[in-house]
């Protein structure tokens, strides 16, 4: 069978079948998994670091971690959910050590810019940049909580599970983070 035929056959498989194929020794099945999920993983990573270079490095790390961990993947959750979890863990580990290098925000990139004048876009861009700078100043656990709650839209239960501790502690962390952000953004 030719390589292109193998690739075409693998592309037809669903995620679970791809994982099984990979675990059974079909190395190219992993390439298909990467091709299928790399955009979603990159977007998760970008939310943590806000710049392309670091997001690309993190995405690579996520898939290297996945390569080693896929044998333990049982299919209880969707592969996309599992990869999201791996990505969050990799990003938390890496960004706990290094504060994000913040690229200037391009206001024209905003997803919802209906009926907004140029001044409004610039003002909003500046405001978002202020918010990022403030988040970067938060203590690591509060920063992680904000990243997971706001940027990854995870529930407090999921955050407690990832960061360890109770749901109450996760909520308290988030509450204190909001209070700190308020003070920083006002000053």
């Amino acid at each position: 069978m030719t390589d292109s035929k193998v690739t075409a056959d693998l592309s037809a498989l669903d995620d679970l079948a791809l994982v099984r194929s990979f675990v059974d020794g079909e190395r190219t099945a992993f390439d298909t998994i990467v091709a299928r999920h790399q955009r979603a993983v990159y977007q998760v990573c970008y939310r943590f670091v806000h710049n392309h270079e670091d997001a690309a490095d993190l995405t690579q790390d996520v898939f290297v971690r996945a390569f080693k961990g896929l044998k333990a993947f049982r299919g209880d959750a969707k592969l996309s959910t599992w990869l999201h979890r791996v990505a969050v863990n990799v990003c938390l580990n890496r960004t706990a050590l290094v504060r994000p290098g913040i690229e200037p925000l391009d206001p024209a990139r905003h997803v919802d810019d209906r009926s907004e004048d140029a001044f409004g876009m610039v003002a909003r861009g500046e405001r978002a940049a202020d918010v990022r700078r403030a988040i970067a100043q938060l203590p690591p656990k509060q920063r992680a909580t904000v990243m997971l709650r706001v940027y990854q839209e995870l529930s407090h239960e999921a955050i407690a599970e990832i960061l360890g501790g109770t749901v109450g502690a996760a909520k308290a962390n988030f509450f204190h983070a909001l209070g700190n952000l308020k003070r920083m953004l006002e000053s």
Partner: protein
Amino acid sequence: MTTHLTDDERLDALEGTVDAARSAHLHDCAACRREVADLRQVWDGLMVDARTEVPEPPPMFWDQLQVRVGSAVDTRTAAWWMGARGWMSLAAAAAMLLLVVSWGARQRTPVADVVVSQADAAIETEAIGDTAQQFVSDVLASLEDEAVHEVLRPATGAFDDALATLSASEREAFARLLQAELTEGSE
């Protein structure tokens, strides 16, 4: 007038999950409404940034990422395999040392050991610092793998003791065996 909302309840109010009784308090209490409004202002600022689309990387990026991930996992797999081979070679060398030592011990008579004077023992100890031990020390020092170091470090004393029981020719024979095994293992 019921008690003011706790931090936890203020967060619930912000996220729309506060229960009916506390919601009624919020409706009647200007102070609590102000607290929640402050939180909402911060939340809205975060949302401005969170809703910003992740910028699309250059078109070639996705193909490059797949290549990068592929190289990274293949390099790691190769590194692990080389490390494992090196470790297996050392294990084989250690096994050979035991064979040589046990063979050497059988060749000696207990009487010979007893009659060695204190002065002779000192000379014997100094003689251990010959090419064989130097070679073993060099090999250990050159190992970069921390794990292998940790495994071998406790054994170095045993190596010294074992080498002390060998004659010069036995030590040279061991050095040759170790050299041959390591050379083969690194190919």
